[in-house]
Structures are given as structure tokens and as C-alpha cells.
């Protein structure tokens, strides 16, 4: 083997070690091959499906960021936040306000996207500071975060009059804001406008892959080690010299930034955002995806979210009330029988079958 080959091999191995670790399920060539095949299949999907279906699939991908963010905050740092939708909605409105005022030319929608995520993440850091440096723990984190999102929903709901505007953008109360431009990429022959369809789908797929891999690296890093230690025994972590409040706040900020990403993308996808996206029912949905999928593992959260969303949409064909009943049953079953998540339980079972069949 030449030195450059050895160097390349060891670089690949270093990258793999940073992607793998005790905090994340799935390791080794078999796992990554399957993962690569899944991404390839997802990339090939628009070739066999019509544009509307692909736009619908893009809709699913949008929610995965919020789910992964909640997975970090709840599953890894141990704080059940009921208010991720606050950052979702805030970022959605921010995207709307910025793009309605500045327009879509020169790639400004991308700037709006980045700014919306930054605003959401910053707000999350502030709320996180208020909670964790104020010694708020356990169920009270859930109550405070739920209250925050409900305050935002109620406030936005009463912004109906014409005096409620930021520049050109009217906030519009209950009806919400609409008409903002979708994501628009500047291009030589003319801007590419990403309406729901294959181009947006590819952009989102790429983002999901990048975020997933990035989170895996973060969770398997020393920072991730401290997060899971905090989940296990926060007192001890403090007694090892770490400022636990800082780590919790940072984890919460990351979760908020991911929720904000979902929010801004959602607004760009559908060209509308309403206060109900921050309401009681919306706030509980991410909890469902993450609880059913599995909160302790980022891969399970990602897969679980997609499975639950797809299932929910299928059931809604029969009537949304049946879908919600199934959702409620899923929650009960998960909590009572598989508290680590149904996807995790399935993956563990499959792992056991795989291992025992090798003998």
C-alpha cells in the first residue's frame, strides 16, 4: 500500500470513529452501507414518483430537523421541552417578515433562512438561560416551555389589525402570514424558485444528511459525553468540574436552532405560517414522533419521525380522527411497553435476531 493510500485509509477511519460511538446506534461497514443505499434510494425517488408526491415527501423531510433537535434536548440532555414549536413558529414568521420586506432576488431568501435559524436559536439560548440558570428542572421545563409557545401563539393570534406589521409584512392574527416567496437560488440563466417538487426535495435531502452526520459527530464528541452524563447524574457532572447549566443551555439552543430550521423551511415550502403552528396540538406532535421513534438515539429519532409521519398521513385518508386515536394508542403503548421507542425496540430486536442467527 502506498503512503497516500494509508493516509487516506486512516483519514476515513478517523472520520468513521468520529461518526460512531456509544451514544449512537449503528456502526460498522454493514450499517453505513445500508445507510448509503437508503440515501441513494431516496435520491432516486423523484425518478419514479410524480412531482406532487415528491413535494409531499419534501414536506416530511422538513419536520425531521425539529424531531432531531428535540431528540438532542430530550433524549440526550434529558430535558423534556414541550415548546419546540415556539422556535419553529418564531423562525417561520422571521423568514416571512424578512422575505416579504427584502424580496427573493440575489439569494436573499437564503439569507432569510439563515437569519431565521439564528433568531430561533438565539431565542432558545435565552429561554435556556432563564430555565437552567434558574434551576428549573424536570416537569417544570415542560410547563415553562409549553407556556412560552402558548404565549407566542396567543400573542400572534391577536395581531389582526393593520397596525400589526413589520415593514411590509402584516402579521395578520389568526389567519397567519402568507405570500412570502419560497426559497430561491440565484442562478445564471434566471433564479431557481424552489416550489414543492424535486429540486426542493433534493435540497432538503442534502440538508437532512448533513445535519444527521453533523449531529452524530457532535453527540459522539466530548460535548456529547457530558450531555449523556448530565442525563444520568447531573449532580456528579457538576462535581467533576463542569458547569452543568451551560451544557444544558447549549443543548437547548441547538434543539431550538433545529426547530427553527424546520420552521423556516416549512414557511418556505408552503408559503404560509399561522399561530396554530405554535399551539397546543402542534406542540405535542414532535413529542409523539420522538417518543414513538426513540429519543435516546438520533438514528431512531430520524427513522421514527418519517415512519410516524407517513403512517399518520396514510391514516388521515380514512379520517383524521382515526389517525389521532391511533396516535394516542401509539403513545400509550410506547410508554408502557417500549419506553425507549418503538423503532429502537425494533432495531434492538433485529440486532438480536441477526446476532443469534450468526451462531
Amino acid at each position: 500500500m502506498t503512503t497516500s493510500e494509508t493516509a487516506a485509509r486512516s483519514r476515513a477511519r478517523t472520520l468513521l470513529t468520529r461518526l460512531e460511538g456509544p451514544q449512537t446506534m449503528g456502526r460498522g461497514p454493514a450499517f453505513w452501507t445500508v445507510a448509503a443505499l437508503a440515501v441513494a434510494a431516496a435520491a432516486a425517488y423523484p425518478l419514479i414518483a410524480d412531482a406532487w408526491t415528491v413535494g409531499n415527501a419534501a414536506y416530511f423531510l422538513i419536520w425531521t430537523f425539529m424531531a432531531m433537535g428535540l431528540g438532542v434536548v430530550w433524549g440526550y440532555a434529558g430535558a423534556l421541552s414541550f415548546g419546540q414549536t415556539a422556535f419553529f413558529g418564531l423562525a417561520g414568521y422571521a423568514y416571512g417578515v424578512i422575505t416579504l420586506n427584502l424580496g427573493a432576488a440575489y439569494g436573499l431568501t437564503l439569507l432569510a433562512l439563515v437569519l431565521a435559524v439564528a433568531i430561533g436559536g438565539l431565542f432558545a439560548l435565552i429561554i435556556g438561560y432563564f430555565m437552567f440558570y434558574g434551576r428549573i428542572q424536570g416537569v417544570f421545563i415542560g410547563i415553562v416551555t409549553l407556556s412560552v409557545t402558548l404565549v407566542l401563539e396567543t400573542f400572534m393570534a391577536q395581531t389582526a389589525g393593520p397596525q400589526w406589521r413589520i415593514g411590509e409584512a402584516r402579521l395578520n392574527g389568526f389567519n397567519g402570514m402568507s405570500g412570502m416567496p419560497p426559497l430561491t437560488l440565484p442562478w445564471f440563466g434566471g433564479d431557481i424558485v424552489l416550489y414543492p417538487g424535486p429540486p426542493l426535495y433534493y435540497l432538503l435531502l442534502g440538508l437532512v444528511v448533513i445535519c444527521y452526520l453533523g449531529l452524530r459527530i457532535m453527540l459522539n464528541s466530548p460535548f456529547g459525553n457530558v450531555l449523556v452524563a448530565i442525563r444520568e447524574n447531573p449532580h456528579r457532572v457538576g462535581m467533576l468540574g463542569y458547569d452543568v447549566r451551560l451544557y444544558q443551555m447549549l443543548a437547548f439552543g441547538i434543539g431550538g436552532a433545529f426547530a427553527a430550521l424546520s420552521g423556516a423551511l416549512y414557511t418556505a415550502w408552503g408559503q404560509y405560517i399561522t399561530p396554530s403552528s405554535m399551539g397546543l396540538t402542534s406542540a405535542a406532535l414532535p413529542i409523539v414522533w420522538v417518543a414513538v421513534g426513540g429519543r435516546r438515539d438520533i438514528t431512531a429519532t430520524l427513522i421514527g419521525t418519517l415512519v410516524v409521519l407517513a403512517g399518520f398521513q396514510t391514516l388521515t385518508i380514512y379520517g383524521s380522527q382515526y389517525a389521532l386515536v391511533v396516535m394516542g394508542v401509539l403513545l400509550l403503548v410506547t410508554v408502557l411497553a417500549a419506553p425507549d421507542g418503538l423503532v429502537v425496540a425494533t432495531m434492538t430486536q433485529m440486532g438480536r435476531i441477526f446476532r443469534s442467527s450468526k451462531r
Partner: protein
Amino acid sequence: MSEILRVQGLRKAFGGVVVANGIDFSLSAGAMHCLIGPNGAGKSSFFRLLLGEHAPDAGTITFDGSDITGLRSFQRIRRGISVKFQVPGIFKALSVRQNLEVAFQDHLHGQSLGATIREMLDFTDLRAEEMTPAGILSHGQQQWLEIAMAVGVEPKLLLLDEPTAGMSPDETRKTGEMLHDLNGRGITILAVEHDMAFVEQIARRVTVLHFGSIFAEGTIAEIIDHPGVQEIYLGTADV
């Protein structure tokens, strides 16, 4: 010998219960010192005051020349105080290796982190259990793991609250050897203990605490012969 810890006039009461009644205490760097006393004397409370878990009603704590009375717990740890609690404070769902990583990763990285973790695994005899969840270890093994973790923050002073509680005589002896080893590396040891054989194995000087005050201080031999000490343990004294 320089002084690593000085406590002056430390007072703390919870409602009507006085746990620290004007404690004056001094510890030299490099010492191996034990804190003994009957139940309820305030030994664990004294540790919690040193660590910053409770704020004292009065008094100061000076560590390594600086006043740490107003600092939060994690700040005191960063200055070089480390603790091993009575109930093993390890991360039960994480592997032994991960427990050590969390303890050491703030000070070491990469190669030296790996090397130190290997060394610690040998030090605690846990090489074979590197990847097992710490909750599965035996009680004695969990205590040793926690001692190793307490060393990870590169302490100058190591506080141990009943480190041999629940251990067999063999495990107790090994723990004493570990503490001597750490002391040889320059770490000052202050331990709360009930097991007199262990105290004899590790301590050069002993302090007796009673009702939140220092009752007596001296070498082991002096304390054992002290008539008052026998009485407060047996409950015949009018103190």
C-alpha cells in the same frame, strides 16, 4: 509544609439543627488525614460545606491560598478539590470507559487521554470491564471507578466520604493502597471514615468531630487513648 486548606469559624444551621458550630480546621499539603466522629457529628455536612453544596451561615474557607467561600461547586472543583461520595456517584448506564472519559476529557485530549484512561483502568483493576455499563460492576469496583474519576480532574485535595463502606477486608486494604499511591503523586487526602482499621492504614493524623465542633485532633495513637473520644462514641459523656 504549606497549608492547602484552612477553615475558619465555619458555622451552619438548618432550622434548629447546628451542623457546624464554629469549625477551625487546617490541612497541610500532602497530608493524609481522617475525619471521624459518631453519627450526626456533622462530617458529611462539613464536606458539603467545603464543596459548596451549602453556603455557610458564617466563616471562611481558604483553599490553596484563595478564598473559595463564595464560589459555586463546579468552580471549586476546577480549582483542585475533588470528591468521592459515600453512595457511588458514577454514571450507571454509561460504560466504564465513558465514565473515565467524562472525568478526564476536560484536561486531556487525544493520545494522552487514551493513555491515561488505560493507566486508570489498570490502577483500578478494571481493564476487563472497560466496555461494561458501570451499573453492573460490584459495589467495590464502583467505588474504585469513582476514585479514579475523582482523580481525573487533577485535584490537589481529594475528599472521600466513607470510601470503604460496604467493602470486604481485601477490598478495603486495596483501597488503602490506592490512596497511598495517589498521595505519593502529591494529592492531599481527607477522608471521613468509620472503619478504624482503615483509618490506621491510611491516616497520619485524625480529627474528631462531635456535634459540629472539633472535639480532638492528633495522631491515631493519641486519639485512641483519648478518654473523651471513647465516651462520645459510647454515649456516656455529658457533652
